[in-house]
């Protein structure tokens, strides 16, 4: 390697006398010391004032940091909330939090948790019990799916914060051209047909990621089934799956029908929420299932001049498509709930702070500025919310209808098993894929297979 100095070269042999050499060494020592100290500070955490609460937040448009500042001010010195940023995607957020909590890290007080991972955290004993009075207050006037998503084994283990749901977004002009009556519930077949007739796109998330599980779960729940039929909290080998049930087969049929149609773009097997939103913004945008963020996103693009302002004006939203005409849809439920770490030095203060964070006022602020829908039903009557999100009533209705993803401490195994079996969506076979997935997930849960 050319970087290694040649010991025989004259430069290497001429020693620079004493003084000259000492300084760089001292500098290097100081630099190493500083590095070590900063490294230790980063790892040590915890320390400091017991009234300083650290809130691990998922990345957003700055809303959680602002709410933290507001609650700090409101607390009048009783506590200070500091935020710490987690990675972008939910799976990495879980990985980081679990690694820290498994090491009994007391630097975490509050965490923003994705609902499907809550049972795993609760079962492992990572969450401080919710005091009864707090539980009563934070579930009052909250949409059902958010309460369900914060519950494990019959007990509330987290505080519902904001609740997300996917809607069926459509271009009014396209629906009109196709002659589709959007005031009535529509099915997947109908929107695919309408898109094919009008030469537009149907956007859904076909990439091998959590969003594929979200889609599949919505399909199977809409068909009247469930991914997990028997939860078996204590013993993973007793978990029963409903993938081979009639509803499971029907969900696979719909997935196959959508993926094989001409209405999905060329890159369907790598389509995530963002690329779906981009496709919907394009000229060929027709329909998409996606979270409410797509609306402020389009408005922002129009404001920035990268999107024709007539495009977001053409946006409209309704309840998620049905699998069968007669059965109501079960839209995806997501969002973030707040959990207090079992290793926090001041869980009482943390719950006090959590109650402040999820106040109706803060939820309304978060909804309007960051586009993250509230879990509290009262927020949907707020005039400011209604002005920013004309489709807020649809979001609320969708949340009432929404079905959470399977609740189990082994959620990662179930979800990744589904992603492996049902990806790419164009290759699924009704019946066969469900059997393969069941076999794989059962073997993985029994620790007889790799994932």
């Amino acid at each position, binding site marked *: 390697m*050319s970087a290694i100095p040649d010991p025989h070269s004259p430069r290497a042999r001429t020693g620079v006398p004493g003084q000259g050499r000492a300084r760089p060494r001292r500098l290097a020592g100081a630099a190493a010391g500083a590095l070590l100290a900063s490294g230790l500070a980063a790892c040590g955490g915890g320390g400091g004032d017991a009234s300083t609460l650290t809130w691990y937040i998922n990345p957003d448009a700055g809303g959680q940091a602002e709410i933290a500042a507001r609650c700090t001010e409101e607390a009048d010195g009783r506590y200070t909330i500091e935020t710490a940023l987690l990675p972008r995607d939910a799976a990495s957020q879980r990985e980081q939090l679990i690694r820290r909590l498994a090491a009994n890290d007391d630097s975490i007080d509050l965490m923003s948790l994705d609902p499907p991972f809550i049972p795993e955290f609760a079962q492992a004993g990572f969450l401080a019990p919710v005091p009864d009075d707090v539980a009563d207050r934070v579930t009052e006037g909250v949409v059902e799916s958010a309460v369900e998503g914060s519950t494990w084994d019959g007990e509330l283990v987290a505080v519902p914060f904001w609740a997300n749901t996917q809607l069926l977004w459509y271009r009014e002009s396209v629906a009109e051209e196709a002659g589709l009556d959007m005031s009535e519930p529509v099915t997947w077949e109908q929107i695919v047909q309408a898109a094919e007739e009008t030469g537009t796109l149907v956007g859904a998330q076909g990439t091998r990621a959590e969003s594929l599980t979200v889609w599949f779960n919505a399909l199977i729940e809409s068909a009247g089934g469930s991914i997990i039929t028997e939860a078996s909290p204590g013993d993973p080998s007793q978990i029963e799956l409903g993938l081979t049930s009639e509803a499971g087969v029907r969900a696979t049929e719909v997935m196959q029908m959508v993926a094989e149609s001409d209405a999905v773009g*060329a890159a*369907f097997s790598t389509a995530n929420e963002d690329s779906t939103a981009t496709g919907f913004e394009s000229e060929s945008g027709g329909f998409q299932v996606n979270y409410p963020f797509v609306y402020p996103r389009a408005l922002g693009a129009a404001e920035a001049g990268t999107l024709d302002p007539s495009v977001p004006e053409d946006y409209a939203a309704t309840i998620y498509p049905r699998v069968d005409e007669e059965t109501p849809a079960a839209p995806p439920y997501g969002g973030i709930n707040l959990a207090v770490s079992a290793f926090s030095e001041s869980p009482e203060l943390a719950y006090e702070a959590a109650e402040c964070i999820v106040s109706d006022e803060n939820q309304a602020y978060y909804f309007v500025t960051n586009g993250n829908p509230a879990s509290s039903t009262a927020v949907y009557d707020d005039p400011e919310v209604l002005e920013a999100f004309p489709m807020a009533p649809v979001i609320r209705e969708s949340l009432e209808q929404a079905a959470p993803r399977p609740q189990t401490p082994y959620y990662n195994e179930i979800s990744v098993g589904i992603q492996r079996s049902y990806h790419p969506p164009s290759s699924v076979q009704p019946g066969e894929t469900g059997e393969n997935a069941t076999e794989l997930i059962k073997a993985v849960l029994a620790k007889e297979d*790799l994932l």
Partner: protein
Amino acid sequence: MSTTTLPPTKKDAPVSAPKVRASDRARGEKRLGWLLAGPAFAVMLLVTAYPILQATYESLFDYRLTDPENRSFTGLTNYWVILTDSLWWQSIGVTAFITVVTVAVELVLGFGLALVMVKALRALRPVLRAAILIPYAVITVVSAFAWQFAFDIQSGFVNSWFAWLPGVSENTDWFGDRWTALLVICLAEIWKTTPFISLLLLAGLAQVPEVLQEAAKVDGATRWQRLWKVTIPNMKAAIMVALLFRTLDAFRVFDSIFIMTNGANGTESVSFLAYRQTIARLEIGLGSAVSVLLFLAVVLIAFSFIKLFKVDLSQARGE
């Protein structure tokens, strides 16, 4: 004689030094050597040997990070589970494919670059060397993102720039198919690590004695003959060391796959498999077993390089 190299010299028996018992000075130097290298050696043991031993120990257990109470000794069960799983062999296949393709292409490209650098004007050489090094200085995750964005169907420029190539069109979804995804992963790896191999080869090129080249020239050897009969045989050690380092490195490929495909469409490497078991699935026992097997594979590669190709690591330094 088909190749021309200088006669080998025995390194441990310098001609000028008669065989005697180590002198006080030699012993003193030896002690100083140990004193200087000792701390580094201890740190190496601490940061490499300890985790390896720990992983080997953990691999014998059924141990889930969120359920430490139910940890139980299962012997070699984890290894049996892995070695009888088709996913493991598929990952080995993908990893071997990436390793062979990238290392082969990098060797040829790197050699070309090294020749260019060695022939370049003295004034140009430092600039050229720095320019060639830039990709190697880029963090792998950043380079993976750059390549992903370039080939992305929505934001990428590749589809529109190279639409004239057969098989490429506006609608080519590079990451939607196994082989096209692997192609992009390999391209990113090659772009990033060719500089490393070219610098190692440059050091080797610089060691080829000029006298041999001149002698060959006098004998009427063509440029091509000189390359094959003089240059390459004389830098065999450097080539082998470059190959060894890159093979070991390529076999542990992770970042590009993680960023570009997240293992979809059958692009999972062995490192990725270890990550998925240990970090995502939290099965510390099973994941450790995958890591230990990966470690053994790397040791096997290093061992076979050193034994089969008789790579002498010290030769690369020109000793």
